[in-house]
């Protein structure tokens, strides 16, 4: 049976380089998750040391004391059979947790190796195991549980083993999905080429990728197992004599009129534990999955520039401001998880005249893209302009109402992103995505928008515009995607194009074509371009002027000739020196079709 849907949790695929120390530190910054972890640790400790902690034998009964109140030695009183509630609660921790543990072990042992193998090797093993997984998932769980119990005996362990088998597919699918995705990643390829054996690759490279999602899933499944055990008890599918929280809850429910308070303790223990498990899972997935994305916080006083920050621009601001774009003392900050701010752009000045192409160069992390985003007002979550001024055609956009700023986007200032594929919505056809701004922004009819899109596609030199119009992003090549994005940026006829490394992801011939396209657009339409790049070849080829950026500051600015021929700043010289090696750090982008097993 075909299974084209990657497991939902597969979305949390991780890069193999998550550093444990920072992950741990990030985890510590999440109080809820830490509290959950502490609660769970306590529960586990109580479970392990139950024989030492429990003051009484959990089965020791004195019917005379049934429903008796708490006293000095029996801290929580007695249950319906005159047993010590406190002791049973403690032993319940042991039995409940080991029950969940058994379910988990069974599920992990069955699910993970098979998932690894199926995801890594694919072929017949994948087909066969996927089929079996589908079978298990289609089995009527309740019937299987009841029947197995009748065959194997009514103990909590039997229930949990069967449950482990029934939830194993969730681990299988999780692992298989992630492994299938990373199988062809470069580092795995590299490991393969370097002659590592398959099992070492799986153990060393692949397993690390699935480790975190598995940990998260373990927490969730443990919660499910505990909850399900209680639910089964409630239905009278009991776990026999073993004191578990579920059994205690059910026993309390049988006497809810006489002693409603008996429900409280096992209910509390169950609820706390499940809540802790889910909180821990969500904390872990935040820490391991989001990779340090800044905490989500809306900034108030977005544009209140702190007065005490001293502008430290190396290049003094020109007197006159650029007619198309003018940036003065722009600073961009990010709010960190601990609430403090970190400035990444430290007050820069830039100007672009209509029809001018300005290159913004610098190594990655120097703040080039942040500058570009600030102009467009599309800084990622957590980032904001902390001071300065940006004018586009004389309109101040810093502090401009979001709605007003939005009106400039597309029609006045447009954006060409760096990675072509990730910047197209995979769910819509190219034509749909290009036509949308035309219809929404310019109010064109469907036909008119389509005609215009075809025109645009032609303009960016796409051979078969009609076919590309109907294609989905995954069906076109990277070069074509970059042209589509340029077409998208040009669709509403902007005056300023902000191009963020528009050629980086492309191979050399396509790069040249895209650059000539930009040149032609400038020539034909007279648009101004801010091109963000680390490639000095591009600068030489295209730009009128160049600004060099280092660590959030512009260290040198001038005409292309000036910068390339007589660089003044040591950093510029260093950049020029490096460019001679002509090494491009980024791998060539390749379309990769999602494999669909059948």
């Amino acid at each position: 049976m075909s299974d084209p849907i990657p497991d939902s949790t597969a979305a949390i695929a991780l890069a193999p380089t998550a550093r444990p120390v920072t992950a741990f530190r990030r985890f510590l910054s999440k109080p809820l998750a830490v509290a959950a972890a502490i609660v769970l640790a306590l529960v586990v400790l109580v479970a392990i040391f139950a024989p030492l902690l429990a003051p009484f034998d959990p089965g020791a009964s004195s019917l005379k004391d049934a429903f008796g109140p708490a006293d000095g030695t029996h801290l929580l009183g007695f249950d319906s059979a005159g047993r010590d509630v406190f002791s049973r609660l403690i032993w319940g921790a042991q039995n409940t947790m080991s029950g969940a543990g058994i379910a988990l072990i069974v599920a992990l042992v069955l699910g993970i190796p098979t998932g690894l193998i199926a995801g890594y090797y694919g072929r017949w093993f994948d087909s066969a195991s996927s089929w079996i997984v589908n079978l298990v998932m289609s089995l009527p769980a309740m019937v299987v549980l009841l029947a197995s119990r009748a065959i194997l005996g009514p103990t909590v362990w039997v229930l949990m083993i069967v449950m482990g088998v029934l939830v194993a597919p969730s681990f299988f699918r999780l692992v298989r999905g992630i492994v299938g995705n990373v199988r062809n990643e470069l580092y795995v390829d590299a490991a393969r080429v370097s002659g590592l054996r398959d099992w070492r690759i799986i153990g060393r490279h692949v397993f690390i990728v699935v480790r975190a999602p598995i940990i998260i899933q373990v927490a969730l499944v443990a919660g499910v197992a505990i909850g399900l055990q209680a639910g089964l008890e409630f239905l009278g599918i009991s776990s026999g004599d073993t004191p578990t929280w579920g059994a205690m809850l059910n026993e309390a429910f049988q006497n809810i009129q006489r002693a409603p308070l008996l429900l409280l303790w096992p209910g509390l223990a169950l609820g706390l534990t499940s809540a802790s498990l889910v909180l821990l899972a969500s904390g872990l997935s935040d820490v391991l999955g989001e990779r340090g994305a800044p905490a989500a916080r809306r900034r108030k006083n977005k544009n209140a520039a702190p007065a005490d920050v001293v502008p430290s621009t190396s290049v003094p601001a020109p007197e006159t401001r650029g007619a198309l774009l003018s940036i003065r003392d722009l600073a961009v900050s990010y709010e960190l998880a601990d609430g403090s701010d970190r400035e990444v752009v430290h007050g820069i000045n830039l100007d672009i005249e209509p029809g001018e192409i300005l290159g913004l160069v610098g190594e990655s992390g120097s703040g080039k893209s942040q500058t570009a985003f600030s102009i467009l007002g599309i800084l990622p979550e957590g980032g904001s302009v902390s001071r300065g001024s940006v004018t586009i055609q004389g309109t101040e956009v810093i502090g401009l109402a979001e709605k007003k700023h939005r009106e400039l986007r597309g029609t006045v200032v447009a954006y060409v992103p760096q990675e072509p594929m990730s910047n197209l919505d995979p769910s819509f056809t190219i034509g749909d995505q290009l036509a949308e701004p035309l219809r929404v922004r310019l109010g064109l009819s469907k036909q008119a928008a389509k005609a215009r899109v075809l025109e645009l596609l032609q303009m960016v030199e796409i051979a078969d515009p009609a076919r590309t119009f109907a294609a989905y992003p995954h069906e076109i090549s990277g070069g074509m995607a970059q042209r589509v994005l340029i077409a998208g940026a040009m669709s509403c006829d902007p005056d300023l194009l902000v191009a963020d490394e528009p050629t980086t992801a492309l191979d050399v011939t396509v790069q040249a074509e895209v650059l000539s396209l930009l040149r032609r657009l400038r020539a034909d339409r007279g648009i101004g371009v801010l091109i963000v790049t680390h490639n000095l070849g591009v600068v030489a080829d295209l730009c009128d002027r160049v600004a060099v950026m280092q660590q959030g500051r512009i260290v040198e600015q001038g005409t292309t000739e000036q910068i390339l021929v007589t660089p003044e700043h040591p950093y510029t010289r260093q950049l020029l020196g490096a460019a001679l090696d002509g090494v491009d750090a980024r791998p060539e982008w390749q379309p990769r079709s999602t494999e669909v097993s059948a």
Partner: protein
Amino acid sequence: MISFLIRRLLASIVLLFVISAITFLLLSAPHTDVGRVLLGQAAEQSLVDAKNAELGLNQPVLVQYLTWLGNALRGDLGSSWFTSENVLSAIGNRIPVTLSLMVGVTLITAVVSFALGIWAGVRRGAADRFVQIIGVVGYALPGFLVTLIMVLVFAVQLRWFPAIGYVDFFTSPAGWLSTVTLPILALSVGSIAGVSQQVRASVIEVMRKDYVRTLRSRGLSPRRIIFRHVLRNASAPALTVLGMQFVGMLGGAVIVEQIFGLPGIGSMTVSYTTRGDIPIIMGLVMFTVIGVVVINLLVDVVVSWLNPKARLA
């Protein structure tokens, strides 16, 4: 698409066969003494033997299974050993009950979860924490406790809804609504908790995508970006989870059906399995497997429509 459907169909038929065999084997293995359960604990052995022979239980399991299979292939699923009702009509009588719950819960879950998930994922901050708390609470509260409290408060105390029973939709739509409302709400709690977390996670993930930034750069309104682009891209994993919830709800329905005295297939599964009523259980299993197959197919079709990369071929 056609070839996909045909292959799916064939695979499902094989699945149905294998599951029917496994279930039959599982049900026969413990040798529940059906004759004795039918006749009473202390019935004379000769009578019990006669009863078992009457039901064909003295035959080898394989023969029993093949007999069942042969009849089933001819459309005859037999009659209950314990109530003599025809299996098809017995299940037909109870499916509307459980289906009402499942569809109701799924609709409510879908609407509420997407609303909450999008709200949390887009607004983040306090909204996000609120939705996460809902998730944790809904997840940690034992389902039967929620149900019991709801019955006590809304049915027994306030008398807003009946405490027990089911009214067929075609007999009285209002009656139907009043009998299924509480059970649906009770079941929705856990379901919403799970699905809203998934929607939230997907929305957050999609919101961080490069193409969302690019869409913003084209001057599209946040509303348009969220409801057209983010929602569509975030829907696929959420729908998969919703589909799983739908299927998994059969289990959750058991408790709710018992507490509300609803004659659905959830409580039927438990009570008839413990009695060892093989004809009914086999019928139920066949129906639920077909249901699962159909739901999975539906989810796959919808997801493939949402996500062109996941081609159905």
